[in-house]
């Protein structure tokens, strides 16, 4: 069975939410069946049963008192659960700031002293079993961060810093999605979380501290040259090169991303070429122009260069 993602949790917070969903589904099912029985009685029941339904006490109890009690209990349960989602038992959670941008995500990893040690985009890497404190902010409009299998949903509101805790209990790749309409390409603003085994995560982090080596073969070298000449550096960072623009996603390790275009397309040379040539056809309204003036060979070179940024 392909469960909806919210009912297929992979972390403790997501499990609480899935449990809430199941409780709601169970209660609602009982209420629905009860109402159906009542309706059946009212339509086809014996005279005495129908009279019972019309009594004042029946209406006050079944129509008012029971719903008030049931809804109050459910409200209290869900409020308690919501509070749990923005707290943690771990005294030293890993800290990551995620900034909602139109229409992608900036990801900044902090060290223990609160310095940014690593900047990435559209993808979050975490170790399994570790509580992760996400500090959610926005650079422009309201976005909402949501990775259904790992935790709750929290808005990113300009001028505020909302806290959301995530944790994963198994390694894997989990998809997220902006959950607050934020303009044209909102539906194409996806996110990816990669959960590693602890030792694997340390290796990953170490590799990320060193910028990728310069392109080694002619086609990729031509792509690197084009990247510079076309002015890509005005918007994108590639550490270890002159590219230091902070407007768009950091591309230092774009070749390793699970997905491209902010969590929406697979990562291969074809997509890299297609995105550079006409990202506006793929994700209409996004802030990167289509580079329709490039020749076929130039597109190949760009794709080769971007792919080896890993």
């Amino acid at each position: 069975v392909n469960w909806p993602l919210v009912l297929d949790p992979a972390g403790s917070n997501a499990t609480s939410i899935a449990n809430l969903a199941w409780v709601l589904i169970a209660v609602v099912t009982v209420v629905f069946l009860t109402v159906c029985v009542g309706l059946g009685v009212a339509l086809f029941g014996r005279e005495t049963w129908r009279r019972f339904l019309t009594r004042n006490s029946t209406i006050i109890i079944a129509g008012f008192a029971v719903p008030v009690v049931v809804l109050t209990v459910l409200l209290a349960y869900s409020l308690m659960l919501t509070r749990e989602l923005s707290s943690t038992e771990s005294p030293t959670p890993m800290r990551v700031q995620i900034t909602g941008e139109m229409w992608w995500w900036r990801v900044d990893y902090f060290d223990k002293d609160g310095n940014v040690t690593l900047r990435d985009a559209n993808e979050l890497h975490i170790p399994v079993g570790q509580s992760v404190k996400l500090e959610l902010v926005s650079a422009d409009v309201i976005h909402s961060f949501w990775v259904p299998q790992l935790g709750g949903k929290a808005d990113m509101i300009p001028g505020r810093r909302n806290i959301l805790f995530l944790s994963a209990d198994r390694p894997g790749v989990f998809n997220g999605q902006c959950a607050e309409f934020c303009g044209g390409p909102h539906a194409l603003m996806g996110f990816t979380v990669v959960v590693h085994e602890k030792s694997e995560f340390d290796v990953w982090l170490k590799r990320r501290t060193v910028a990728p080596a310069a392109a080694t073969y002619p086609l990729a070298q031509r792509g690197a040259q084009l990247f510079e000449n076309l002015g890509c550096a005005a918007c994108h960072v590639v550490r270890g090169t002159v590219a230091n623009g902070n407007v768009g996603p950091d591309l230092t390790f774009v070749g390793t991303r699970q997905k491209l275009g902010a969590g929406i397309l697979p990562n291969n040379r074809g997509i890299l070429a297609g995105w550079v040539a006409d990202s506006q056809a793929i994700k209409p309204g996004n802030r990167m122009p289509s580079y329709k003036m490039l020749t076929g060979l130039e597109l190949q070179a760009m794709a080769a260069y971007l792919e080896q940024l890993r």
Partner: protein
Amino acid sequence: VGLALKSPILFTLVLLTACSESEVDKQNASGNIGRVAVNELGCGACHEIPGISWPKSKVGPPLENYGNRNLIAGVIPNTTENLAVFLQNAPRFVPEGGMPPIAMTEQQAADIASYLLSLRVEG
């Protein structure tokens, strides 16, 4: 049908069944596997392809009725085997073209090739 028309619920069910059947008729089972592979690799980032609703980019040629085409990229005969090779390494045939080599499994290449060749009109 008489009974179905009288009952809105039954009528809706009949309509739903009719839709899903014609959807299935459009593609044979193996073709459908190829369509899934096309989605997995994101070929729509450059090509308009029947059966793929997004993306529908026009960087490269649209692939409507591709099975009716004689030559792949105007270079080699359009057979399943040739197409599977071309998909993985287009620059071997069109060195200056925009389509780069694309990493995929042999199975994916074969599935996509047979899907594209199934896109044809007779006559």
